[in-house]
Structure formats: C-alpha cells, structure tokens
C-alpha cells in the first residue's frame, strides 16, 4: 500500500513538474517540416533534403554533436518541441515577437529579402535606389533616402501583396497613404493579376521570386528596387529552441556565426535558393 501511494505521488508530481533532461548536447534532435522547398523538403525517394538539412549537418559538425533529424508536420511543431520530442527546430521559421513568447531562438541564419516585381514593359522596370539591400530595423540616412525614392516611385500606383504577411505590414506602414494596396489570398492569384496588368507591382519574398523566374510561370516579370529585411519583415530565420535551453541556443548562435564568417551559409544559400540569402555577420 505504501509503495502504491508512493507511485501515485510520483505520478502526480511528474504531471506537474515538467521533465528535466540535463543539458548534455552531444546528441541533438532537430525537427524539420520536410515539405517546404527549397528550405527543407523530401525528394521522391523519401529522403529529407534542402538548405536546412545541409546547414544542420554543417552546424552539428561545428558543435561536435551527433544530430538526428526528425520530420514533423508544421502543425504541432512548437508543442512537440515543448514536450521534448526534439531539441531544436530548423524549418524556415521566422523569428517573430509572437513566437519569442513561447520559445527562444538562435541568431538568424538566413533572411530572404522582400523585393518589388514589375512587368518588364513597365515604366518602372529600371527603378533603382541608392542602396541594394536595406535593413529596416535601424535606418541610416542612405536607407532613408531609398525609402523616399520608393514612396515617390510608387505614388498613386496599385500594389498587390499576399494577405496577412509581413509584406503587407510593410506596405501599410511605409506606403499606406500614397498607394492603393490590393491583397490576395494566394501568391499565385497575385502573379496572375500582375501579368494581366491589374496591379502595377507586387511585393513578396525573394525566395519566392527567384525560383519562379527560373520557370515558365515567371516570364515577362522582373525585380526592381532594393532587397528589404528587418523592421516589419521580422528578424530572419533562426533555430527554434525551448526557453530553458538557452545554452543550446548559444551553441547554435556560435556555430552560425562561424558558418556565416567562413562563407558556408552563403554557399549553401546560392546552391538552394539561387541567390545569397545568408544573414549578415553581426
């Protein structure tokens, strides 16, 4: 009877305690979605491949850790991290304030800039600003001039954007009063209207545009203006980690810094995205 009640007490304690696995990171389990090309996807033989798979292998080597990759559907990818099914998420997950309330992140390893796209016959087809890339988190005078240029160039035009995205947030914040914003439920519908001339330009992530331009569907369109990151666009894509495992997040950050410094991430990004989507050294 005593034994029984002991077991019962432990059960109850276990329910409320939350598990506690010591921070030995020689083995790390990393979850990915496996259905988000080219970040992480599955080839037709069933093997997980993609930018993040290559990157994970590289980072694990730098951390001297043995890594196991787990495929997990996007729904439930954060709850399963919390439940201890794996230790880290590398699944094209943007670092946002909302997610930061429940998990922590390593530094970002990739940030795909947002770009405007116009028809190549458009009068705006050669639009350029003084800077090629700008980070909106901290705006310097040159970037300020570029934003003024963008506002002047697109004044009175109609801009298409996918609804409920960071891109829409940017348009409302920076261009809201000077342009007409049209929102679309899918990016594909937006592409059709851009080709039909119903919108003058469209704003979306470069990791979407580049592969599109390589296929037939992207004929007659081109990217204009600077690549924009930071600010309303969030702080890039990072490794998602349980809040109590800050030490693991720091290990990833250190390994990512090394991989950015020696050009590994740029190389992998060019291989998978067709352009350098790597984060800048901090």
């Amino acid at each position, binding site marked *: 009877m005593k034994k029984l009640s002991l077991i019962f007490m*432990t059960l109850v304690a276990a329910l409320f305690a939350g598990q*506690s696995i010591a921070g030995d990171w020689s083995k790390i389990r990393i979850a990915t979605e496996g*259905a988000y*090309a080219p970040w992480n996807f599955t080839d037709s033989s069933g093997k997980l491949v993609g930018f993040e798979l290559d990157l994970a292998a590289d980072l694990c080597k730098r951390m001297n850790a043995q890594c196991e990759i787990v495929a997990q559907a996007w729904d439930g990818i954060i709850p399963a991290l919390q439940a*201890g099914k794996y230790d880290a998420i590398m699944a094209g997950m943007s670092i946002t304030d909302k997610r930061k309330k429940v998990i922590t992140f390593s530094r970002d390893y990739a940030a795909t800039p947002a770009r405007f796209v116009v028809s190549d016959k458009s009068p705006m087809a050669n639009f350029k600003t003084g800077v090629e890339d700008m980070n909106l988190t901290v705006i310097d005078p040159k970037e300020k001039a570029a934003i003024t240029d963008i506002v002047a160039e697109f004044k009175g035009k109609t801009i298409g954007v996918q609804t409920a995205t960071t891109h829409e947030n940017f348009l409302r914040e920076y261009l809201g009063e000077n342009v007409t914003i049209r929102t679309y439920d899918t990016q594909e519908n937006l592409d059709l209207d851009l080709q039909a001339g119903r919108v003058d330009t469209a704003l979306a992530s470069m990791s979407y545009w580049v592969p599109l331009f390589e296929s037939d569907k992207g004929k007659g369109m081109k990217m204009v203006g600077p690549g924009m990151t930071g600010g309303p666009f969030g702080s890039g894509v990072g490794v998602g980690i349980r809040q109590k495992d800050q030490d693991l997040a720091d290990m990833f950050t250190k390994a990512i810094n090394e991989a950015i410094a020696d050009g590994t991430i740029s190389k992998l990004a060019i291989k998978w995205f067709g352009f350098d989507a790597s984060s800048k050294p901090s």
Partner: protein
Amino acid sequence: MDFSLLTFGDGGWADEMLRGALMTMAVAVCSYLFGIIVGILFASLKLSQFIVLRYVADFYTTVVRGIPELLVIYLVFFGGGALLRNIASGIFGYDGYIDPPLFVTGMVCIGLSAGAYITEVIRGAVLAVPKGQIEAAKAVGMSTGKRFWRILVPQVARYALPGLGNVWQLTLKETSLISVIGLVEIMRSAAVASGSTKEPFTFYLLAGILYLGLTSISNRGFLRAEAWASKGVRYS
C-alpha cells in the same frame, strides 16, 4: 497535371502515397478494434446496476465525445510522452529520452474517440432487445451464458452494425488528424509530396481518391455483414 510524378520508384511519388494509404488502413483497423474493445467494456459499465460504474462510463463518453479529436491527440501524444519520461526519471532514475511508439500513440488516440461512439452504439443496441425475450429465456431455464450468446449477441449485432459502420467511416477519416504526431499516413504523404514538388492539386486529389476508395470498399463489407446479421429477419 504531371503524371510522371505518380510513378513508382525513386523518381515518382506513387510508392510514398501507397505506403501512406497502407499506414492509414493499419492505424484505422487497429484503432477500430481497440475502440470496439473499449466500447464493449464501457457499454457494459453503462448498463451496470452500480451507479459508480455508470458514472465512470458517462464521464468517459461525455468528455471524449465532447472535445475535438485533435485535442485528444495532443493530450495523449504530448502529455503521454512527458508523463512517461517523468515516471522513468522519477521512479527508475532513467534520464534518457523515451517515447511511446508513434503507432501505438496514434492507435490509442483514435481508438479512444472511436470507443466513445461505439459505447453508445452498443448500449443502444442492447436496449433495443425487448426485455420480454430475456424474461422468456429465463422462464425456459436458459443459463446466463446461453441467454447472452443465443438471445443477446445475435440481436445486438444486428442492431449495432449500421451504427458501427458509421463509426468505422469516421475512424478512417479521423486518422488524417494523426499526421500532426509525425505518423506518415495519406494526408502527411500528400502534404510532403505537394510541398516538395509544388503540385498540391495533384497530390490532394490523389489523397481524396485514396480515402474514397478505402471508404467505399469497406462500406461494401459492412453492407454484407448487415445482410448476414439480418438473415433471420423478414422485412415486409
């Protein structure tokens, strides 16, 4: 639509989709059998003369039928693993990573929710057998076992089968929810294939066809079973 995507082998996705269909079938059958066992158990509790047992069974069917299946899955999958690990480290001092096998987790989740519906189906079928027949069987001196096998079971089977067929179809479709725990069944295969090839229409259409195939084949089985169970009844 690009049909080269639907070939077998390393170049196409047909083998992945088919494996997903087999997994769906395996989970559905195991969960259903588990659900029938659970259902018979709780139906007998519900019909018991002890009020406490009736309350226990009422609690189960009310809760499980009243909350979404997805929530049951989250509770069993996420809660179950954490509980198991805490027991392991609390009682046995084992600090490694343990997890109940995915298949068993999926089977328990879907089976528990199917079981709640099956409980009600069986309870209804038992109550549909006229009380007079049991009394008559008692009057001619049949033993409890004989009354159960000769009077109750054949009629309960007949009354319950249409309802059980319904629950089976629900179970088959509910298995699509367990893709959240990482078990690769039809929906997860379709999601992976469409995300990797950017051809969602092809693969979700195929998933729909596979579900329709599975449900219509099994539906025929249930119709046959119903005909067999009703062979002693004349509908005029």
